[in-house]
């Protein structure tokens, strides 16, 4: 109504309040988005760390036990196989029966269930190491069952009972705590054991070895092939339709879902070429195909960054095209290529889906020795454990994730440092 009487300046000034408010709002949305992203990062890490830190400690029961040679039917001079096959579980059961005096069979059973089923192995390996302790009384730190471990680490001290432990069991445990027999120590089992159905015996060594072997295969294949492909496409390929197709293809391949590489591995490597399943070899082959596009793309960028003057100088001095590339361009482009390769390897390290297809999900207890032994890898181990209902496995899954993230951080830091130290500006 007053529009016609207002000057343009007045109109603009009248709208400024609204426009400034809109400006502030827009800015806040932007800030909120960045903060939301960072918040997610913090929550994710916080969640994993709060769940996983306790995986690095393990509750043990310190007890003095007599290695009764008569009961075990062995002497310090017995053969190794006799020592191996002696009944250590029985010895431990007898020891606790005498020590705690449970009434009746069912109470005895619930008492024995407090001790890990791996306790017998612990005694066995001690005796194997030093057979002279047979007949003597020794002090050992026995692993306890995961229910006791969880209760001691998380619930003890805040006065709550336990869903998994009975009144009587808690009474025995409190007795041990009062006599200072129960304590936590660094969880070495987690790092030296392979997978197990029992949480307190499960470790990531098998998975880590499998991961390293798989990455070794991946690196040995993908680095030379990727570098060679990048050199060809950047330095030798004629600019024609075929080269264009190859280029489009590589870009597309970098964005294809990883699971399709698993299908390829299953149908071609396993079914047609007969590579055995679940091995680091077939895993490495699949991951090679997956990381190749990353390595090729970064390799080409690194070669492109080498100025033409270098090539011209070399050619001018009589070097052949091949000598120019291998003696001058490649060494200068190498830092960039290595950075790309490390990033590709980091991707391969975290990859899970294609490896599920080629059988790396199998339950493997033994630590693989070579690239054709059945094995699993760290991300798949995480996937397997996350499915287990036991709370102790949740904790170990988070612990394994922390180890995996640790590896990734090391690799990415290495890539960044390499880029900073070796990258040249022309």
């Amino acid at each position: 109504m007053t529009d016609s009487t207002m000057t343009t300046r007045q109109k603009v000034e009248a709208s400024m309040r609204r426009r400034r408010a809109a400006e502030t709002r827009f800015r806040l949305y932007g800030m909120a988005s960045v903060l939301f992203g960072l918040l997610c990062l913090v929550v994710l890490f916080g969640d994993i760390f709060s769940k996983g830190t306790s995986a690095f400690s393990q509750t043990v029961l310190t007890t003095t036990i007599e290695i009764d040679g008569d009961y075990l039917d062995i002497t310090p001079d017995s053969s190794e196989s006799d020592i191996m096959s002696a009944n250590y579980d029985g010895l431990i059961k007898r020891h606790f029966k005498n020590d705690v005096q449970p009434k009746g069979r069912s109470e005895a059973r619930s008492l024995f269930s407090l001790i890990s089923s791996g306790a017998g192995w612990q005694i066995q390996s001690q005796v194997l190491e030093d057979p002279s302790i047979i007949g003597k009384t020794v002090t050992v730190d026995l692993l306890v069952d995961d229910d006791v471990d969880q209760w001691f680490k998380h619930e003890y001290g805040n006065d709550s009972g336990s869903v998994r432990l009975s009144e009587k069991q808690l009474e025995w445990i409190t007795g041990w705590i009062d006599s200072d027999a129960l304590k936590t120590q660094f969880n070495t089992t987690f790092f030296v054991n392979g997978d197990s159905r029992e949480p307190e015996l499960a470790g990531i060594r098998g998975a880590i070895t499998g991961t390293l072997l798989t990455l070794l295969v991946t690196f040995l294949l993908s680095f030379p092939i990727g570098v060679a492909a990048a050199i060809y496409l950047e330095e030798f390929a004629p600019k024609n339709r075929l080269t264009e197709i190859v280029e489009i293809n590589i870009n597309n391949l970098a964005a294809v879902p990883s699971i399709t590489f698993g299908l390829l591995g299953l149908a071609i490597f396993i079914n047609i070429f007969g590579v055995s399943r679940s091995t680091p070899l077939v895993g490495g082959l699949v991951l090679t195909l997956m990381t190749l596009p990353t390595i090729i793309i970064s390799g080409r960028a690194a070669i492109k960054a080498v100025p033409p003057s270098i090539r011209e100088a070399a050619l001018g001095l009589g070097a052949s095209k091949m000598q120019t590339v291998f003696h001058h361009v490649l060494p200068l482009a190498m830092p960039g290529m290595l950075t790309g390769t490390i990033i590709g390897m980091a991707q391969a390290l975290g990859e899970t889906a294609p490896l599920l297809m080629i059988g790396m999900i199998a339950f493997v207890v033994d630590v693989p020795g070579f690239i054709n032994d059945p094995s699993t890898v760290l991300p798949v181990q995480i996937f397997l454990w996350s499915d287990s209902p036991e709370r102790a496995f949740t904790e170990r899954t988070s612990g394994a994730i922390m180890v995996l993230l640790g590896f990734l951080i090391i690799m990415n830091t290495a890539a960044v440092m390499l880029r900073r130290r070796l990258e040249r500006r022309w």
Partner: protein
Amino acid sequence: MNYSTLLIALLIALGAAYFLGRNRARSLAGQGESMHSLPTHYGALTALWTTLPPLLILIMWVMLEPRIVDALLTMQLPEAIRTASEAEVRLALSKVHNIASDPSMMGQSELGSVAAHLVDLEQRAAILKGGVILSLILLGVAVTWRRIQPDLRARGEVERIVRVMLFASSAIAVLTTLGILVSVLFEAVLFFQKVSPIEFLFGTTWSPQVALRADQSGSSGSFGAVPLFAGTLLISAIAMFIAVPVGLMAAIYLSEYATSRVRQLAKPALEVLAGIPTVVYGFFAALTVAPFIRGVGESVGLDVSSESALAAGLVMGIMIIPFVSSLSDDVINAVPQSLRDGSYGLGATRSETVRQVVIPAALPGIVGAVMLAVSRAIGETMIVAMAAGLAANLTANPLDSVTTVTVQIVTLLVGDQEFDSPKTLAAFALGLVLFIVTLVLNFVAIKIVQKYREQYD
């Protein structure tokens, strides 16, 4: 001889041949001859001719040996098995292989004689293989040694061979695509012979359980994939609902508003989200986000499934944020400063400039970025495998449990497989759909991004 010994032999031959060739060239030059190339070229030439042919033969051997052996064994099988179905033959063959690897079982089965034949065949193959490889190595050294004369143009020949090797390396990328396509297509065609494509693409019930024996009661399996497509779209839509606004606004804030200090810190921090393995996101979704959403839902009286689409979609959205933001950042930065300056000159505020000038100019690139993000969401496997369910519900309710194409591929292929059951083949048909959809999305998106990134240069 097994493969690793042969590979080590090849490696030794490689080194030895190099020194032999080089020294031969040097000694010729020492006799006063004027050589065409440097001694190292003659060494490299000898090394290449010594190791390349046996290596190629070895690779072919690896591929062909099992098939030839199986064909020979099939002829040895008892008449009854050989004339039965193909599956029976394959079963018998795998039994034979098992028996052969464990000599104590040899006498216990009627297939014992076939297994003995297999052991014999394998021994003969190993000797033959070792002989062929070793003689090729010696032949390569001898022939090249004779050829090393002053007028042999070793450099040119070495460079031609190396060039072929470089080309072969870049061809692997194309072969990979072909390999994926052929392997998926081949099994998918087998599947479509048993289940019609119409039923697969438009059917609305998905229950891939197939009765194991003919006399067994139970479903014969139905393969209508619509619930899977719907589930995939639902979860991807939820993910996009989070990732697109947050990623885009973060990119705008970082490129238009933030000081360079903030930018230097916040950008890599956001990109950390993209580097976290998907299995970690899956764990986070299944054990933290899903129970949280369920708890919130119950407190307001909603019935939330413990494997809700919302939890998987939400976490997938978080994963894709850096993907959208860094790609959008690139295209926003590609918009020339002159456009912004012109807008400021006309009196527009920053946000008005962004909304009315920068975004429209960058829009095609942003659309491309979003398409790439969608393709990533569709193909993402671990988050949905761990946080979304297996129940093929046809629903649009994000609080319900749905399943996706990738989850079904994993479920159908993990564990024991029979390559003639529609259940296993269905996974490849789903893989084909997934591959084609993501390939088309990527192809179009990469074209768009490349085209509009250069437009203002």
